[in-house]
């Protein structure tokens, strides 16, 4: 029997955190509806962990409001700061934080003992959760004799068993090897939806973000640049910085030439090349960039006698790596750009040094400002 938890929404307004004079988080606004998973994506040092620790109550924000289930747990103006142990927030740490002096069962039972639940209920709930995460046979093991993946499950079980209002994950999979990471990621998402727990997940891996999230918030230098569902953010980033995090590997500076019926002409800086796009740039600042995902290029061998379509770069392959389901090419164009291409059909006979041409459809070229206007 799986008890669905009474999920609580998370609402963060104007969250700011300073360490001395250094501002780690600059006025972040986030909302996570009940039972949903928000992924914080961003480069190292952008304030993801700090934001998360503020939600948990491990860090006191300098300013702002944090509400869980509509109730403020932190409010700098009203001087509310519910201590961490009264927030009923679960957290899975990157380091697992499994207590080495306790067995698996003791680790998982700890939060229930803190709630002073009767022994019978503690045993029942611990047994149930260990079964769910697949650790029944390890219940009496010392926590230190477990593998990385097993420790991660203990950490998850320890958080789930307390039926937390919200569950926080700080890069929980980053210490695991690639296969285990994929496996646990799917499992984790399944448990999160099954238990209907409102969650925040921190990562700097874009594919992890896209596959887990109901909502992605892209962060940089202490600010949320854009928050949207994965499909929207993937197809429609508001700025080139967001596009960069979300997998647009080819980003070229340039300037809009003219708008026409069949598209907008965009001249790349420091070259004579012009790209056509059908998307007019949204408002913003910091210059305009043409952003193209590597899988949106079509690559083929270049023969000089064949006619060249518009929106086609001509160049020389500098590296080719077979990745299994696709082949990754890097091409240096005659006009000076370095372009990454993922070719996901049958591998081509294009060794380094061979001439190649790259075509991109105007609808796959996004023209984006460096920073969006808001």
């Amino acid at each position: 029997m799986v008890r669905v938890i009474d999920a609580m929404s998370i609402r963060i307004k104007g969250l700011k955190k300073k360490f001395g004079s250094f501002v780690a988080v600059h006025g972040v606004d986030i909302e996570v509806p009940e039972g949903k998973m928000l992924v914080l994506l961003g480069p190292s040092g952008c304030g993801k962990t700090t934001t998360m620790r503020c939600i948990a109550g491990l860090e006191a924000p300098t300013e702002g409001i944090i509400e869980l289930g509509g109730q403020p747990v932190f409010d700098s103006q009203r001087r509310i700061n519910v201590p961490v142990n009264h927030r009923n927030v679960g957290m899975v740490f990157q380091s697992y934080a499994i207590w080495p002096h306790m067995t698996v069962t003791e680790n998982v039972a700890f939060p229930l003992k803190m709630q002073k639940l009767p022994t019978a209920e503690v045993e029942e709930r611990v047994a149930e959760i260990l079964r769910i995460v697949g650790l029944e046979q390890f219940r009496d093991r010392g926590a230190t004799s477990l593998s990385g993946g097993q420790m991660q499950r203990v950490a998850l079980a320890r958080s789930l068993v307390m039926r937390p209002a919200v569950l926080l994950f700080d890069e929980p999979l980053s210490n695991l090897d690639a296969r285990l990471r994929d496996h646990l990621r799917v499992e984790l998402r399944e448990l999160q939806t099954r238990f209907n727990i409102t969650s925040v997940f921190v990562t700097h891996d874009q594919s992890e973000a896209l596959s887990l999230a109901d909502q992605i918030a892209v962060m940089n230098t202490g600010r949320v640049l854009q928050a949207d569902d994965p499909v929207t953010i993937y197809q429609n980033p508001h700025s080139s910085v967001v596009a960069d995090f979300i997998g647009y590997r080819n980003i070229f500076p340039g300037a809009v030439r003219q708008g026409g019926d069949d598209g907008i002409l965009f001249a790349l800086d420091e070259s004579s090349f012009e790209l056509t796009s059908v998307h007019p740039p949204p408002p913003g600042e910091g210059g305009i960039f043409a952003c193209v995902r590597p899988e949106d290029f079509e690559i083929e061998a270049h023969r000089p006698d064949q006619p060249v379509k518009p929106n086609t770069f001509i160049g020389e392959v500098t590296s080719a790596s077979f990745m299994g389901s696709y082949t990754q090419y890097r091409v240096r164009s005659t006009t000076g750009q370095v372009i990454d291409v993922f070719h996901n059909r049958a591998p081509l006979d294009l060794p380094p040094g061979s001439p190649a041409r790259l075509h991109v459809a105007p609808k796959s070229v996004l023209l984006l400002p460096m920073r969006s206007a808001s």
Partner: protein
Amino acid sequence: MRRATVAERSAVPVLVLVTLFVLVVVPILMVVYTAFRDAVPFSGSESNFTLSNFGALFEEKTVSAAINTVIVTIGGTLMATAIGCILAWLAARTDIPFKPLVHVVGILPLFISMLAATVTWALLGAGNSAYLNIILADLGAPFRIEMRSLAGFIFVEGLYHVPYPFLLVYAALSLITSDIEEAAAVHGANQFQTTMKIIFPVVLPAILGSMILNAVMMVENIAVPQILGGPVGLETLSIRVYYLMNRIPSSPTQASAVALLLAAIVFALIYAQNFVLKGRDYRTISGKGAQQKVMSLGNWRYVAAGFVVLYFTVAIVLPMLALLLGALRANAYIANTAAMFDVAQLSSDRLLSITSDSEVINGLKNSLVVAFVTCVFGTGFFFILAYIVHRTRIPGRKVIEYIAMMPLAIPATLLAMGVLWAWIGSPIPVYGTIYIIILSFLPRFMPQAFRALSSSVMQVHEDLENAALLCGATRAQTVWKVFLPLVRGGVVSAAFLLFVLSLREVGGALFLYTTNTRVLSIVVFESYENGSWDFVAGVSLLYTVLLGGITLLGLKWLRPSL
């Protein structure tokens, strides 16, 4: 709920700061203040500002004491460092036989009281009736040993301060895994170049660090100049302070001035350490290979082993034999070598009478009580300090750390004087009880214990505690259920350290005891002045056995990082 949090947040650090201030800062200020007064302040008599106390610094006796201090410190430090480095290298990097024993030999003197050791060397080599000199005479040797000299001071200091360079250099050598050396070889260095360019620079901070540490201890040592220097009037600064305090009529204000000079020397040493070691802490180098390259000594192995055996014999075996002999002889007079080992002249009567001597029993009782209370209270309090400093964001934690480390620069004699004056006039009647000795021992051992506890606190990842807080545990529950079990080893070892240090301490108890509140170390220290040699030897023997026994009991908690 919020109000409780605020109160809790300010109450604990304020309480801690006040306690620290009373324990550490007040005694120091008392001595500094007294140095500028013409009578001890707050003692009933009137006192006025004066600079005349500093005239004592220019008295001939003080000047020669200062010169002696410098000579003994330099000589002793060089000797201890040389022996310690050789032992460390042998234990860490060679194929010397019985390697683990070399390690034991290197740290063993740590658990022998400097006081008892000095007594044994007085028995062995002070004057023509000393054991070694009797043997030399019978052998027809043209020379005699004289421990009641600066050379004697240097010898004893150097012999028993070997563990510190040994431990630090050994640790540094263990950090250099063979991959670091192999990397040097790969990049074209030969064995000699590797040693000079890689190993030596990495070990150098450890060598310098242990030298300063030793120098500080030698500067403030009081047992050696008292027992070896007392009979011939050879003084160092620390004993000069003691005599100024204890002579009749005593000159406490001048003693304060001289104590400040002593503190200035110590302070200069510590400043030099920070200067020399700045940015040179290589303790964080972590070679994971753990494979250590071992140098093959060939036939030199036996020379090396001989060196270790020689050190062990001179530092431990010979003194123990001398103590036994001294304690068991019925008659202190020894005609020649044959008489020395004449079993008929031995008797356990005296030793047995010592074990039932009320003064000794009382001293033993006091020592154990003082050590126990210091250990319990100190471990608790210093643990709180370490926790606050390393685990909270409480404002003022830097100040706490600073004050906790301050006694490192305070000579024992100065501290004891300060504690005396701080409490003698206070309405709390601790003077005349053993509690005033505890009040002196607590600040005295604060830096060592605080440092030991800090390193175990820092070893526990903060997230382990955060996880418990998130599970609904209070801060107190977190410390009790998660943190303490994880640092238990470190805490027990710090407690043990405090216990042993308290049993061994002499300097910190000076001026603070009365007839009934002597601790065992003080009984030994004083007995030499008025007792016969068999009594001194007997008490020293008991004292050594006590320390040795406790060390053996606690061996499993001992960490090489002591």
